[in-house]
């Protein structure tokens, strides 16, 4: 059924349809509406989940870890500082190979304190062993959560999935979204059937001490399965299309890249703005396309190489920076293309930090500066502030 709802509500509806057994979260802007809505749904008896109120995000993630270990489907959501506080548990959930889904609402990190959108928070935990999917709009956010449970619980994966959505830009924006029925979601996503779970009649320990004679092999298996999970991410997108008739890409998605000399690569909601800008530039005769990175972990190495094989110039836009190095996604795109035939120049543009609007002017500036050969730069800077400092 098509509904005009807020992005946060779309997430809550999707999560409810996935029938989680345990939901635990600590409210934090701009994630709050998601868990407010879910706690209301639990209180009203609309979904049969246990909603566990906790005193911190560290505890929220820990409750979910325990819930999955005990054989339940679990869900949490957080953002920014909350995600940082969760970080220790995130690595544990992945290392213990416990499948679950959290919504990583994207918000800038302190200091300075900012409640507004960028993607520094989820990118900072990119090495945690969680798979990361980035959504472009609220329909994709809804669909991605349903796909995420399918991916994480697959025997070939058994790694948790973080669905990343831009704070405010998506969470607080009303869009028309198609909400599937319970029957449709049940047919797509069977009940969670854990491969292993805590059981008093067959006791064992999860996540126990591993000495130097074992640790490296355990980490190797995590890396092997994370890389192989790319096939499962693709399969989930295809199966979802067959069941629900919607396709928004699998690991990457190209827009007007046919015959494009220049390709802009980005993640999340900025893709929508980029597509509109590219339409305008195409009308003017510029051969520009957009490549959406939908799945950041596992990293779509082959797909990026394939999609960018004919580009002469690649501009990677990122709402984050690996301070002291360069953009995170731009660095990885560079590494992916290094040594490829007809290797394009890869320009790293950092912008949109702490909620700074990204407009057509920002893209025009990136176009101008990358054409002039600038490799690493911040776009949309207020020069007058820097000159005054």
């Amino acid at each position: 059924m098509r509904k005009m709802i807020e992005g946060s509500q779309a997430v809550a509806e999707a999560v409810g349809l996935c029938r989680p057994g345990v939901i635990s979260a600590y409210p934090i802007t701009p994630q709050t509406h998601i868990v407010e809505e879910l706690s209301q749904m639990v209180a009203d008896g609309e979904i049969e989940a246990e909603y566990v109120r906790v005193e911190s995000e560290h505890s929220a993630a820990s409750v979910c870890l325990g819930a999955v270990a005990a054989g339940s489907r679990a869900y949490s959501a957080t953002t920014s500082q909350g995600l940082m506080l969760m970080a220790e548990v995130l690595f544990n959930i992945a290392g213990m190979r416990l499948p679950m889904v959290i919504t990583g609402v994207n918000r800038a990190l302190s200091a300075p304190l900012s409640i507004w959108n960028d993607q520094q928070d989820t990118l900072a935990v990119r090495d945690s062993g969680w798979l990361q999917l980035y959504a472009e709009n609220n329909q994709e956010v809804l669909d991605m959560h349903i796909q995420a449970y399918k991916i994480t619980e697959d025997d070939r994966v058994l790694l948790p999935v973080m669905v990343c959505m831009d704070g405010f830009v998506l969470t607080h924006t009303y869009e028309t979204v198609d909400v599937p029925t319970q029957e449709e979601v049940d047919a797509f996503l069977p009940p969670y059937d854990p491969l292993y779970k805590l059981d008093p009649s067959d006791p064992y320990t999860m996540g126990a001490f591993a000495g130097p004679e074992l640790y490296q092999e355990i980490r190797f298996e995590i890396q092997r399965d994370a890389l192989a999970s790319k096939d499962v991410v693709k399969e989930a997108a295809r199966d979802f299309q067959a069941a629900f008739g919607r396709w928004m890409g699998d690991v990457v998605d190209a827009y007007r890249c046919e015959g494009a000399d220049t390709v802009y690569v980005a993640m999340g909601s900025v893709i929508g703005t980029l597509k509109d800008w590219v339409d305008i530039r195409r009308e003017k005769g510029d051969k520009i396309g957009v490549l959406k990175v939908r799945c950041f972990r596992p990293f779509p190495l082959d797909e990026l190489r394939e999609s960018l094989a004919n580009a002469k110039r690649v501009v990677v836009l990122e709402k984050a920076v690996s301070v002291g190095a360069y953009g995170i996604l731009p660095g990885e795109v560079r590494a992916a293309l290094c040594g490829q035939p007809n290797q394009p120049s890869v320009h790293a543009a950092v912008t949109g930090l702490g909620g700074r609007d990204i407009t057509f002017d920002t893209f025009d500036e990136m176009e101008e500066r990358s054409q002039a050969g600038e490799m690493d730069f911040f776009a949309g800077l207020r020069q007058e502030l820097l000159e005054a400092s």
Partner: protein
Amino acid sequence: MTASTKKKRRKPPLGIITRPGSSLRNKTGPWGILRPVFDWEKCTGCNTCEIICPEGCIRHLEKKQYEADFEYCKGCGMCAAACPFDAIAMEEEHR
């Protein structure tokens, strides 16, 4: 293990499951460089060392007779620090 009977499932990934008894299997004795030495003249058999030992490896044999299990004793010195009669000295272990 709750493996589904309907479809073939993979084996659990490495390191996920440790069967009970790992504390017994994991011998911590070689960790330490000190070991407790009892002075039976001073010992009153008060049991403080047995109670305080975090590894549970001091055993009360009979009145004023204790034994540390060096397969597990890490040489932490809690027993020596807690002994009300200074009857335990931590001495360097030579292997």
